[in-house]
């Protein structure tokens, strides 16, 4: 057999990234900063990092699959990217024990980013750790001269960490808690819909019309998608599905489209950011 030479040489590889800082934000949340100049330069808001936790499939690893974390921030000048995560199960507990100087095995940046509409006011709607991508997106929006509004929801005040980061990145932040311990008492969807309706009733936003970007629990996003459809507001959502590979080879992460299973798309490649109209919310 004589075969033609390969057309393109492989160019990607998992990266060995040093932990630059690791902060406990309270409420079970952590802020992890990695030294990663190339990622910081290339990354777009909405993309994610796929982190090998506990050694992965390697010689001493029990955890097989990586864990996905949205890029919560990227600083090309310092050459760092940051993740905002909740200490939860096996992967994130392992991650929470990593100390500055340790090296992590990371695939990044992965996935399709948010598409920032330059002609509309960005409105971010975040539930729980869903705030993560909007810190990065707020920074990018400000760089493009936009003035983002961010609506952040959590069960309780203690879990609201991330708001300061959003504000520092240049977003105007309003919060909602289910138990009313901070901000609006109720869901973040109620809050944002009410706010946008009031603004509309008052003759429109003081500026261009809104474009919504959401990340959070499925139920929150389904409710928001319904409201946006009713009001005609454009909505992009960042979805979370189990991701065995993160690079498009396993088909574990597919998202059904609105017209049935024939429209499955991979959350890790075609997503995690989708137009809300292209998702079957049921």
């Amino acid at each position, binding site marked *: *057999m004589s*075969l*033609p*030479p*390969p*057309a*393109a*040489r*492989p*160019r*990607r*590889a*998992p990266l060995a990234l040093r932990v630059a800082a690791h902060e406990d934000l309270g409420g079970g949340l952590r802020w992890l900063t990695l030294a990663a100049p190339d990622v910081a330069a290339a990354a777009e808001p909405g993309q994610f990092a796929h982190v*090998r936790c506990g050694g*992965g*499939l*390697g*010689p001493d690893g*029990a*955890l*097989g*699959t*990586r864990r996905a974390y949205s890029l919560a921030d990227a600083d090309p000048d310092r050459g760092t990217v940051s993740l905002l995560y909740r200490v939860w199960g096996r992967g994130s507990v392992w991650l929470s024990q990593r100390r500055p100087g340790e090296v992590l095995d990371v*695939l990044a940046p992965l996935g399709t980013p948010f598409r920032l509409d330059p002609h509309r006011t960005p409105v971010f709607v975040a539930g729980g750790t869903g705030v993560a991508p909007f810190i990065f997106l707020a920074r990018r929006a400000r760089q493009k001269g936009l003035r983002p509004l961010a609506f952040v929801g959590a069960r309780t005040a203690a879990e609201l960490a991330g708001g300061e980061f959003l504000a520092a990145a240049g977003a105007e932040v309003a919060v909602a808690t289910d138990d009313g311990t901070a901000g609006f008492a109720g869901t973040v969807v109620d809050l944002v819909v009410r706010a946008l309706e009031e603004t509309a009733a008052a003759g429109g936003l003081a500026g261009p019309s809104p474009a919504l970007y959401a990340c959070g629990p499925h139920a929150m996003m389904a409710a928001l998608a319904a409201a946006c459809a009713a009001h005609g507001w454009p909505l992009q959502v960042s979805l979370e*599905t*189990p991701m*065995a*590979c*993160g*690079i*498009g*080879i*396993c*088909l*574990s*992460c*597919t*998202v*059904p489209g609105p017209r*049935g*299973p*024939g429209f*499955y798309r991979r959350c890790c*490649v075609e997503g995690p950011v989708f137009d809300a109209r292209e998702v079957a919310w049921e």
Partner: protein
Amino acid sequence: MSDLTTRLGPLTLRNPVLLASGTAGFGRELAEYLDLAGLGGIIVKGTSPSPWYGNPGPRTVETPSGLINSIGLENPGLRHFLEEDLPWLRTQGATVIVNVVGRTVEEYAAVAEGLAGADGVAALELNISCPNVKAGGIQFGHDPRLAAEVTRAVKAACGRPLFVKLSPNAPDVPAVAEAVLEAGADGLSLINTYLALAIDVARLRPVLPSVFGGLSGPAIKPLALRWVWEAHARFRVPIIGMGGIREWSDAAEFLLAGAQAVAVGTASFTEPRTAAFVVEGLRKWLDERGFATVGEVVGLAHRAIDGEEAVPLGQS
């Protein structure tokens, strides 16, 4: 320097390391991480006559050293493969093995027929063993007579080297092996995933909507090795071994047990370069141990116990 070429009956591969079906798509994504031409080849995702859409999610769940999947053989169909994927794979210099699926003998034969005329298909892997398709595959893999029938039909439709991939969930695996070999299979692919269950203790229900899925990964390596050992002892046919390979030494175990080639599956999910690392590791091992060819180590562990009782406890 050892020669990594390996022969599986009518099929010769430039080295013994393949990408396993369903864990490498059609090669495009992994080509960003490794050189497909540097591997023995790629076994592409199970391909059906027309597109299949697969199962609702969640489709995977992690278990200790393992992964349960219930993808449901989602694939874009034969035509897409022939028009989009195969030509691209050829530009990469990849050796291509096509994993064939269907719901009926006719569907299997249709895929085989479609591949008969295509340039650049090195071999077929007949998947009669996917546990995630209800109407089709599984019965073929469990019933020696049906397995033989579909093997014959596929071989008749496409003369290329044919490997039949067996299910460890079949009641009588050796009987299925024997039937498909008699029906014209050139070799066996061992092994597909084990029927498995995970329960979500928080939600008090199975994690997967399909209830069961197939277990892959390092957890099943000792089970897969057992099947390779038994098949080699009994049939001395070409074998593609797989199940839980993540290091060169895992691959070496399969070769020593009697496989002429191996496939890397789940491990690519965590480390996309695994297959390339396994090639390098095998090369180094063969060199260091002074083996001139891959063939010298195939089944070597059997010879080590010759005189001792060879297959004392095998099933059936």
